[in-house]
C-alpha cells in the first residue's frame, strides 16, 4: 500500500517495479496484492506487451483513503493520542 501510494502520480505500477520498491518475493507480493484487491483497495490489470505478460497495480480511491487513515492512526498512536 505504501509503495502504491508513493507511486500514485505515475499511474499503474508494474509488478517488477513494486517488487523492487517493496523488496518482497514474488509470492509474498502476489498474495498481498490479491488480498488488497479483494478488499477493494487495489486494482490489478493484466495484459501483454508483445509476448510478455504484464501485471500492473494501482491504488483505488477507497484504498488511498484507507491508507491515509491508517497513517493518521499510526501518527496518532506515536504522538500519544492513542495506544500505550
Amino acid at each position, binding site marked *: 500500500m*505504501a*509503495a502504491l*501510494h*508513493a*507511486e500514485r*502520480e*505515475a499511474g499503474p505500477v508494474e509488478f517488477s*517495479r513494486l517488487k*523492487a*520498491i*517493496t*523488496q518482497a518475493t514474488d509470492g509474498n507480493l502476489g498474495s498481498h496484492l490479491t488480498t488488497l484487491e479483494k478488499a477493494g483497495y487495489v486494482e490489478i490489470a493484466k495484459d501483454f506487451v508483445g509476448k510478455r505478460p504484464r501485471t500492473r497495480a494501482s491504488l483505488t480511491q477507497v484504498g488511498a483513503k484507507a491508507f491515509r487513515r491508517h*497513517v493518521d*492512526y*499510526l*501518527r496518532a*498512536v*506515536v504522538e*500519544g493520542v*492513542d*495506544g*500505550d
Partner: protein
Amino acid sequence: MGISRSEAASALTDIESTAGRSRLLRGYHYAAPILMLWGLIWAVGYTAMGLLATNRWGLIWLVLDIVGVVSTILLSRRGQGAARGGQTWKILAGCGAVAAFCAAVFAMFQPTSREAALAFPGLMTGLVYAGAGIAWAPRYLWIGAALFAASLVGFFVFQPWLAYWMAAAGGGALFVSGLWLRRA
C-alpha cells in the same frame, strides 16, 4: 485491540523507507536517459579530441555542451511528471559546477601534458558521481568508481590512445550506466 507506540513508530518507519525507495528508483529512471545522452556526448567529444588539434578542443566542447544542456532540459521536461520540478536545475547546476571547476584547474595549473588534460575531467566527473552515490543514491557510487577507474587505467596503460580510450571507456561507462539505471 490497538497497537503499541513502538509498533506504530516501526510501521511509520517502514512506510517512510518504502516511499524513500520509490523516490530513489524514480530518480534513477529520470536520470537514465540523461546519463545515456552524456555518454554519447562524451564519446563524440573525446573521439574529436583524438582526431583534431588541441586548439580546437575548446570549440568542440562548447558546441557539445550546448547540445547536451539543451537536450538535458528537453529530456527533463519529458520526465517532469515522474520527477520533481527542481531536478533539472540541480543537474544543470551540477554539470556547470564540474565544468567551471575543471576550467579553473586548467587555468591555474596550465597542464603541459596533453594526457593529463584528457584524463582529468574523467577523474573529476567520477569523483562527483561517487560523492552523489555516497550521499544519496548508491548506484552513482559505482558509476563514479567506474569512470574514475577507467580514467586512471587509460592514463597509466593506454596513453598513446588515451582520447579514444576515454571516448570508449568513459562514454561507454556512462551509457551503460544509463541502461543500468533504467532497469532499476
